[in-house]
């Protein structure tokens, strides 16, 4: 077992997260939020707050901190707090109080009296459907798309001509990432500029946004995040506390620390949208899919920050079909910003598509695995580019054998007071990678540093860097110090899209071969230990005469550097997605299996067994990989049975704390079995890894709903599923 390098510091409390940084003279900020969902700030009475002992500054849109709207490469136009008086959602940041202590800031904040000119708020997704608009911002292209077989006029015709059809509408709730570490920052200005300690998914993005927002040179901003307490897509953009702490620290000339409270995290950050999805499937009697139609609606805030691309994330690519039509609409509401959350598109999209496939299996009286295998795709419908490496059938075969699928009966079984059912679903996540640069430094003491500015928000990237660095330099992992989470390091992109291993990993390999070339050149250069001779590299050593053998004349790289009186030698390597995307389609695949028990009388749904079998390319660290898979599958249980924001008519979230926003506890989670079929995907990148941060949440909710159907004969088409959904009287 490979232990995580950050395991010991984390479990012993040694790991310093953003808010663990303290500085002499530091002040504390507290964010104030709106209590209406639509309107304008009429006035904010701050006199009492300002006169509270210890208060150093009270900032509002009437007396704002100066911040400009940044434009980010990844996320487009950003948002900075306190710049205008418009209120577009309940819980919007409208003020910032800075004081000598956290308590003083918070108590003063409670004294601020806000008056609003209120407008009617549109907060109900159901009501908003009437004014839905085409989603222009779908990350995977145009809002709608159709692929029709020759001679077929429309998807309606294709469905009408199908021997068997199913047609149903599914709903998924809005969710918040609710990472353990709330969004927070400590900002310190000195002669060189600004340093901000803040948890994020890659420190270059926030550094860039902060420089723009504060109107200072890029080189004057330093963002540090060696440890991140969870991100899941919710820490891609610079947070409100980071902008406000940085601006206020400049204003009062002292370091400022600011953190959102747990309750504030639910509205003052961003959430996963709610969705409504209608899926129609048409098939021949033998189970061959001939028509797939998937229309989706996603909630979105008035700023249209993000829509959940459920149709594009699933039906676009998953099954072979001659006829396909998908569409994506946005439903603008007075709700907090929306953003990426673990498997955006795929997670809620798979609930609809994979439930519909199960409904089709029932209509066809076919085994759900058989139906899926029959419609396995070699390439996305209507496209020529074949999957680079796809072993989904094998995932289903292994899973079925391990899970005892053959014992499943169409009506489930009964065990005492419990109705027991089995369900399955496909999982898929696209194989992506992002541009990344990694620097490798060989040091005279025979150690190496592998460094990039990306983040390890709990994914295990730090350990992966040391493993790939060691492998590429042909030395032991103990000789490698990986470094992450600092914008002063080479730009390592973002931990997002399950890309970090493929992106940073392949850049590490490029950096390693560059630094080795450099080392060999140095060794054979005039004055070098192998002056004028051929050299070769293996096992951390430079060999003379270009030949590597056991007793050959050789020196370690450290010895070479010492001989040349060098402390170190550094090179960087960069990679970016390129050519490969013109040759293949890329995706990780998986088969989810689940057993549920439903109480005959009181109808609680309990997950009693879970298995996920995944095809995710090469696995670098099996322990961390399993841990990622478990986390995703547990989150799938959460989405299926627990998690969902409850938006009230006035735009307030009725359950914006961890007492009301339920996530599973240990007792809700059974033993989870995972298995990986390992086929390195070197067509995607030279590391062969495809990433597995997100795939394991995909399909879980559908597998559970399908198992509930098997157990009870009741089809639940909305998540989270509640016990009352199964009460018939």
């Amino acid at each position, binding site marked *: 077992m490979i232990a995580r390098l950050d395991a010991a510091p984390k479990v012993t409390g040694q790991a310093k997260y953003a808010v663990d940084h303290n500085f002499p003279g530091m002040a504390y900020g507290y964010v104030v939020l709106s*209590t209406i969902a639509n309107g304008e700030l009429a006035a904010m009475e701050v006199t009492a707050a300002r006169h509270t002992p210890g208060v150093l500054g009270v900032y509002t849109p009437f007396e704002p901190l100066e911040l400009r709207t940044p434009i980010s490469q990844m996320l487009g136009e950003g948002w900075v707090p306190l710049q205008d008086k418009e209120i577009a959602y309940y819980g919007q940041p409208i003020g910032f109080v800075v004081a000598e202590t956290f*308590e003083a800031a918070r*108590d003063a904040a*409670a004294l601020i009296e806000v008056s609003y000119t209120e407008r009617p708020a549109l907060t109900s997704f159901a009501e908003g459907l009437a004014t839905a608009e085409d989603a222009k911002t779908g990350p995977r292209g145009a809002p709608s798309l159709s692929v029709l077989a020759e001679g077929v006029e429309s998807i309606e015709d294709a469905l009408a001509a199908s021997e068997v059809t199913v047609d149903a509408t599914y709903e998924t709730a809005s969710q918040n990432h609710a990472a353990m570490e709330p969004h927070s920052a400590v900002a310190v200005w000195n002669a060189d500029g600004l340093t901000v300690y803040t948890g994020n998914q890659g420190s270059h993005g926030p550094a860039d946004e902060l420089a723009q927002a504060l109107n200072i040179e890029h080189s004057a901003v330093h963002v540090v995040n060696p440890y991140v307490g969870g991100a899941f897509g919710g820490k891609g953009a610079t947070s409100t506390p980071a902008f406000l702490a940085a601006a206020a620290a400049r204003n009062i000339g002292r370091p400022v620390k600011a953190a959102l409270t747990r309750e504030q995290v639910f509205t003052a950050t961003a959430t996963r949208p709610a969705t409504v999805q209608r899926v129609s499937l048409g098939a021949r009697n033998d189970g061959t899919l001939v028509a797939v139609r998937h229309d989706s609606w996603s909630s979105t805030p008035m700023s249209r920050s993000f829509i959940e691309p459920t149709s594009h994330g699933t039906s676009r690519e998953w099954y072979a079909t001659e006829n396909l039509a998908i569409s994506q609409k946005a439903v603008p509401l007075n709700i907090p910003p929306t953003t990426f959350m673990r498997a955006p598109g795929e997670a809620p999209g798979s609930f609809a598509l994979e439930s519909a496939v199960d409904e089709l299996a029932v209509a066809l009286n076919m085994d759900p695995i058989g139906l899926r295998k029959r419609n396995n795709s070699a390439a996305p419908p209507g496209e020529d580019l074949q999957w680079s490496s796809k072993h989904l059938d094998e995932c289903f075969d292994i899973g079925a054998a391990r899970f005892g699928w053959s014992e499943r009966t169409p009506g489930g079984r009964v*065990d*005492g*007071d*419990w109705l027991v059912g089995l369900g399955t679903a496909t999982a898929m996540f696209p194989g992506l990678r992002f541009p990344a640069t990694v620097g490798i430094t060989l040091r005279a003491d025979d150690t190496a540093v592998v460094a990039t500015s990306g983040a390890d928000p709990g994914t295990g990237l730090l350990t992966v860097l040391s493993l790939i660095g060691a492998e590429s330099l042909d030395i032991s992992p103990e000789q490698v110090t990986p470094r992450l989470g600092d914008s002063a390091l080479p730009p390592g992109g973002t931990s997002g899209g399950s890309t970090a291993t493929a992106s940073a990993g392949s850049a590490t390999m490029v950096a390693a071969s560059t630094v080795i070339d450099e080392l060999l050149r140095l060794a054979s250069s005039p004055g070098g230990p192998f002056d004028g001779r051929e050299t070769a590299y293996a096992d951390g050593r430079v060999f003379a005469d270009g030949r590597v053998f056991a007793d050959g004349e050789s020196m370690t790289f450290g010895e070479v550097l010492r001989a040349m009186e060098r402390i170190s030698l550094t090179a960087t390597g960069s990679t970016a997605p390129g050519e490969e995307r013109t040759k293949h389609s890329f995706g990780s695949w998986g088969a989810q299996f689940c057993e549920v028990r439903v*109480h005959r*009388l*009181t*109808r*609680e749904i*309990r997950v009693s067994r879970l298995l996920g079998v995944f095809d995710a390319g090469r696995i670098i660290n099996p322990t961390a990989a399993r841990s990622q898979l478990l986390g995703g599958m547990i989150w799938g249980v959460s989405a299926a*049975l*627990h998690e969902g924001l*409850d938006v*009230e*008519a006035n735009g*307030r979230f*009725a*359950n914006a*704390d961890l*007492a*009301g926003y*339920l996530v*599973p*506890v*240990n*007792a*809700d989670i059974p033993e989870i079995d995972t298995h990986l079929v390992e086929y390195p995907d070197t067509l995607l990148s030279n590391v062969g890894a495809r990433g597995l941060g997100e795939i394991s949440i995909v399909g879980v909710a559908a597998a559970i709903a399908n198992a509930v159907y098997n157990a009870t004969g009741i089809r639940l088409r909305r998540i989270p599923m*509640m*016990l*009352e959904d199964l*009460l018939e*009287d």
Partner: protein
Amino acid sequence: MRPFELSTPATLEAAMDTGGTFLAGGTTLVDLMKLDVLTPRRITDINALPLYGIDTGDGLRIGALERMSEVAAHPGVYPMISRALLLSASQQLRNMASIGGNLLQRTRCGYFRDVTMPCNKRDPGSGCSAIGGANRMHAILGSSRHCVATHASDVAVPLVALDAQLRLRGAEGERTVRLADFYRLPGDTPEVENVLRQGELITEVIVPRLDWAAWSTYVKVRDRQSYEFALCSAAVALDVAGGVIVDARVAVGGVATAPWRLAGVEAALRGEPVARASFEAAAAIAGHGTEPLSQNGFKVSLVKRTIVRALLELTEGGSR
């Protein structure tokens, strides 16, 4: 949290004199102080007072400061009490929280806990946000136009089933009150939840001896399997002779504004055979007089099902 003055008296007399808000485990009080729902200026830590001990000589006497975990683990405690405690909160909370504090815990209504929202219980006369709002967790029994919040304690449910009493001690001396009479329904004063007087202490919980309560259980139905309040719960005990129910105790939680004893269900069980049909017929009475809200209509069915399940688990040892 607002600044406060703390005193730590060692005797009951001294505690009475402080005039402060009592602090036992603090799991309700400190929680609500952090949310600014409770803002006491003076706090009296009562943990040094001699309110400990569990005596099972004749019935049960439990010192008010005994921790939930201690009471649950005591061998002399009726099964439905220990089960209700073990299904409450989490181990960490049960280690801190006292039995006296448990009976005085406040409702989990989300509007009560959010000071920016109208709530008659927290701010009399401001209105009840739950009636037209998120009320899935709320009461279908004992509610009023002014408040529909449930009483959230689990252990109070078996305690009312067992007709427990509280020993109270105040400036005017000591008195004993039946737990069933201790709680007040919201009516038009939801801010008044019980008959405790200003400065009065709960010193002891007394459970009268009921030997057949050794055959009792507690079933809790909730949105997750641990660490969550009840959507509905039922405490049941049966006295059976020759397959016929001689006597029964039934109380429910999670559905009413106070722990709710169902005398009608008990009466309907008496004289009936131990059989599913008897349980179902009796449980149907639990639906009488229920007043569901917009989101909790399912509780009318659930309360009956929970009672039947509890009776079946007790008599058949139904699988968990």
